[in-house]
C-alpha cells in the first residue's frame, strides 16, 4: 500500500515554502529564499520519484492491472450522507505520472530561476508564488473528489494570475493577468455548473463513486439524467460538456485560448512551468480523470472534445508560423500541442486496444512537458542574453550560446517528431489513434505536424542562424547599456535544467508508456508500424527543410512568400482576429446591450432611489427644523399638546 504521509508531503512541502517565504521572505530570507524553495521542491521531487517507483514497480500492479489507491481521505464538509467535499489523495497511474511531471518541471524551473531571476527586487515573493502554484497543481493532480479538484483548479488560476502579473508595474502584464484570470474564470463557471449537474445525477462528489454510478447504464441515476433533457441534449451530456468547457478554458482550447499568448508577459521560467508544461494540461488531465464518463456515457461530448482539439491544433499552428515574438510562437505551439492531446482523448474509446488515444494523449502530455519546458527555458536564456523577445533582434547566436543552441535544437527535433526524439513516439501514437477512428482529424493532425516542424525550425533558424549577431556595444539600442554579462551564457544554474530537460526530451520516448498508463490499467502493447510513420516524418522533414531554405540565411524569401499568401498571412499574423472578435462582442455588443442599460438602471433607478430618500429627508427636515427653536416653553407646549392628544386617545378611542 502507498504511504499516505509521503504522498501528502509532496504537495505540502511547496505549501510550507509558500507560507515561509510569503510571510518572512522579504525580511529574513531576502537572498536565501531561492535556495530554500528549491531545496523544499527537491525533497518533493525525490518523494514523487520514490512514489512513482513504488507504485509502478512494487505494489501498483495486481493481477496485471494497475490499481487505484486512496491512501487518505478526510471529509472536509459534509452536506448529506454520501455527498461531501473530501480532501483525499488518489494514487493511480495518471496521478503518479503527473506527480513526476509537475515536481520535475517545477524543480527545473526553480533551479533555472535562481539564475534567471537573480537580482529581482521581489525575488522571495517570486519563489513564494512558485511554491503556491506547485502546491495547487499537485493538489489538483491528487484530488479524489471533484470539488477538491475544483478548489485546487481555482488556486492554480490564482497563482497563474499572480505570476503573470509579477511585473505589476508593466501595464501589459497587468492587462494580461486580468485577461487570463477573467477568461479562465469564465470557463470555470461552466465547470462549476457541470460539477453540480454531474454530482446531482450521480448523488455524490467523489470521483470513484461518481464514475461507477454514471458509467453503469442500468443505474437509476443514469436513466433519470438521460431522461431529463434540455435543448435536445440530456442532462449528463450538458454536465460533461460544461465540465469540458472548464477544461478547455484552462487548457487554452479554441475559442477560449486568447489568454495564453498574452500570459507570456510573466517571467519566462513561469511561462515554462505554468503556461507550457503543467497548468495548461490540467484540462487534459480533467478529461482523462473523468474519461470513463466521457467515453461510456456521453460519447457526443467526447466527439466535441476531439473536434475542439483538432481545430485548436491547426489554428494555433497556422498562427505560430507568422508570429515574431519568440514566446508567442511557443505559446501558440503549446496550444497546438494541447490540441493534439485533446483530440487524442476525443478519438479514444474505453478499454483495451481501442484506448490507444488515451494512452497516447497522456504520453504526449509527458513528453511535451519535457520539450516545451526546455524550449521555454532555452528561449529564456536567449532573452536573458539579448534582452528582447523579438525574433528580428536575434540571429547568429549559435556561437555565443552553444549549450542553449544544442538543447534548443534537441527540443525542436523532439517537437517536430523526428525519430528518435521523444515527440516522435507520442505523436505517432496520437496519429495512429486518429487514423483508426477519425480520418478527418487524422488529416488535420498530419498537416499540423508538418506546420509544427516548420514553425519550430523557423524559430530555431531565426534565433541561431540567419543574420550574423551584432556584438553589443556598437549599436543595439538601450539594451547595450543594461548588459553586463556580455559573452556569457548564464551560469551553471541556468544550464543544468536545460541539459537535464534535453536528456528527457531526447530519451523520454523510449519509456514503454502503454504499459503504465491505459484506460483500464491493463498494459497496452505499443507497436510501431514503419509504413505508418513515413508520412508524418516525411512531412516533418519537409517542414524543417522549408524552414531551413527560408530562414537559414538572411534573405527576402520569407517576405515574398508572405506577400504571395497575403490574405492568409495577414489573418494569421493578426491571430485570425479572434481577439478583435472578442473585443467586438464585449465592447460593442455586450457593453451596449447589457452594460449600458445596466449602467442606466444603476444611475437612474438605484441611485435615484438613494438620492430620493436623501433629498426627501433634507426637504422635510428643512421644513420642520424651526420646531427646535431653543425655547423651553415652546417644547413644553408641544409636550402638553402630545399629552392631551394621548389622554384623548386613551379616554375616548382606546378604551
Amino acid at each position, binding site marked *: 500500500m502507498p504511504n499516505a504521509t509521503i504522498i501528502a508531503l509532496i504537495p505540502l512541502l511547496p505549501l510550507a515554502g509558500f507560507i515561509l517565504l510569503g510571510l518572512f521572505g522579504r525580511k529574513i530570507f531576502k537572498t536565501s529564499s531561492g535556495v530554500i524553495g528549491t531545496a523544499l521542491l527537491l525533497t518533493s521531487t525525490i518523494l514523487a520519484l520514490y512514489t512513482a517507483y513504488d507504485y509502478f514497480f512494487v505494489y501498483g500492479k495486481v493481477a496485471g492491472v494497475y490499481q487505484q489507491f486512496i491512501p487518505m481521505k478526510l471529509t472536509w464538509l459534509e452536506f448529506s450522507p454520501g455527498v461531501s467535499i473530501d480532501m483525499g489523495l488518489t494514487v493511480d497511474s495518471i496521478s503518479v505520472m503527473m506527480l513526476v511531471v509537475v515536481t520535475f518541471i517545477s524543480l527545473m524551473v526553480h533551479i533555472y530561476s535562481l539564475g534567471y531571476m537573480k537580482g529581482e527586487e521581489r525575488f522571495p515573493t517570486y519563489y513564494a508564488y512558485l511554491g503556491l502554484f506547485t502546491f495547487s497543481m499537485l493538489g489538483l493532480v491528487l484530488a479524489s473528489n471533484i470539488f477538491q479538484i475544483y478548489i485546487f483548479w481555482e488556486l492554480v488560476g490564482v497563482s497563474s494570475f499572480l505570476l503573470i502579473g509579477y511585473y505589476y508595474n508593466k501595464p501589459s502584464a497587468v492587462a494580461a493577468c486580468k485577461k487570463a484570470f477573467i477568461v479562465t474564470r469564465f470557463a470555470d463557471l461552466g465547470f462549476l455548473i457541470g460539477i453540480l449537474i454531474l454530482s446531482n445525477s450521480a448523488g455524490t462528489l467523489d470521483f470513484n463513486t461518481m464514475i461507477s454510478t454514471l458509467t453503469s447504464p442500468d443505474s437509476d441515476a443514469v436513466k433519470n439524467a438521460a431522461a431529463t433533457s434540455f435543448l435536445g441534449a440530456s442532462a449528463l451530456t450538458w454536465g460533461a460538456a460544461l465540465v469540458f468547457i472548464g477544461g478547455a478554458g484552462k487548457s487554452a482550447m479554441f475559442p477560449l485560448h486568447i489568454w495564453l499568448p498574452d500570459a507570456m508577459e510573466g517571467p519566462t521560467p513561469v511561462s515554462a512551468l505554468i503556461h507550457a508544461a503543467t497548468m495548461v494540461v490540467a484540462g487534459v488531465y480533467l478529461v482523462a480523470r473523468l474519461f470513463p464518463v466521457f467515453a461510456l456515457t456521453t460519447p457526443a461530448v467526447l466527439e466535441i472534445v476531439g473536434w475542439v482539439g483538432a481545430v485548436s491544433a491547426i489554428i494555433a499552428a497556422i498562427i505560430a508560423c507568422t508570429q515574431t515574438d519568440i514566446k508567442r510562437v511557443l505559446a501558440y505551439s503549446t496550444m497546438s500541442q494541447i490540441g493534439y492531446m485533446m483530440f487524442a482523448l476525443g478519438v479514444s474509446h474505453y478499454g483495451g486496444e481501442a484506448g490507444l488515444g488515451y494512452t497516447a494523449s497522456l504520453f504526449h502530455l509527458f513528453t511535451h512537458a519535457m520539450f516545451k519546458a526546455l524550449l521555454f527555458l532555452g528561449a529564456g536564456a536567449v532573452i536573458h542574453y539579448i534582452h528582447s523577445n523579438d525574433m528580428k533582434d536575434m540571429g547568429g547566436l549559435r556561437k555565443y550560446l552553444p549549450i542553449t543552441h544544442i538543447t534548443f535544437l534537441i527540443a525542436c527535433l523532439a517537437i517536430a517528431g523526428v525519430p528518435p526524439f521523444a515527440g516522435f513516439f507520442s505523436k505517432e501514437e496520437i496519429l495512429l489513434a486518429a487514423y483508426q477512428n477519425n480520418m478527418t482529424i487524422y488529416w488535420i493532425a498530419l498537416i499540423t505536424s508538418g506546420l509544427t516542424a516548420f514553425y519550430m525550425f523557423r524559430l530555431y533558424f531565426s534565433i541561431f542562424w540567419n543574420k550574423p549577431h551584432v556584438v553589443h556595444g556598437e549599436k543595439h539600442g538601450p539594451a547595450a547599456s543594461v548588459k553586463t554579462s556580455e559573452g556569457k551564457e548564464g551560469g551553471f544554474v541556468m544550464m543544468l535544467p536545460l541539459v537535464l530537460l534535453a536528456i528527457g526530451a531526447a530519451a523520454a520516448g523510449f519509456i514503454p508508456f502503454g504499459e503504465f498508463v491505459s484506460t483500464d490499467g491493463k498494459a497496452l502493447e505499443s507497436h510501431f508500424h514503419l509504413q505508418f510513420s513515413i508520412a508524418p516524418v516525411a512531412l516533418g522533414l519537409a517542414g524543417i527543410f522549408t524552414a531551413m531554405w527560408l530562414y537559414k540565411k538572411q534573405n527576402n524569401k520569407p517576405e515574398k512568400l508572405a506577400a504571395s499568401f497575403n490574405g492568409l498571412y495577414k489573418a494569421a499574423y493578426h491571430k485570425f482576429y479572434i481577439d478583435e472578435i472578442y473585443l467586438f462582442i464585449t465592447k460593442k455588443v455586450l457593453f451596449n446591450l447589457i452594460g449600458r442599460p445596466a449602467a442606466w438602471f444603476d444611475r437612474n433607478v438605484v441611485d435615484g432611489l438613494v438620492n430620493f430618500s436623501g433629498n426627501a429627508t433634507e426637504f422635510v427636515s428643512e421644513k420642520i427644523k424651526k420646531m427646535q427653536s431653543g425655547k423651553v*416653553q415652546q417644547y413644553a407646549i408641544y409636550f402638553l399638546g402630545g399629552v392631551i392628544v394621548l389622554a384623548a386617545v386613551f379616554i375616548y378611542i382606546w378604551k
Partner: protein
Amino acid sequence: MMNPGLYHILFLSAALFFIGVYGFLTRRNLITMLMSIELILNSVNLNFIAFNKYVWPEKMDGLFFTLFIIAIAAAEAAVAIAIIINLYRSHQSIDVENAEDLKY
C-alpha cells in the same frame, strides 16, 4: 361645617395643575417656572392623597408615592437651582428667553 368630599379635592388639584401649567408656559423668569413645576407636582400629590383616603382607605400606596414625589421635588429643585445659578453666571440673566442657544 361641611366636610370636603373627593370631588372638592379633585377640583382643587386640577386648578392647581392648570395654574402650574399656565405659569410654566407664560412666565419668563426661571425661578417662577420652577415654582410652577412645584405647583404641578403638589397637585399630583393631592390627587394621590385624595384617592388613597377616599377610594382605598385601608392601603398606604398613595401616601408612599406622595412621600417619594416630595423627595424627588426637593432633589429636582436643588438641580434646577444649580442650573439657574450657572445660567446666571454665563448669561447674566435668568430670563428663559435669553437661554436659547441650543437650537437648530
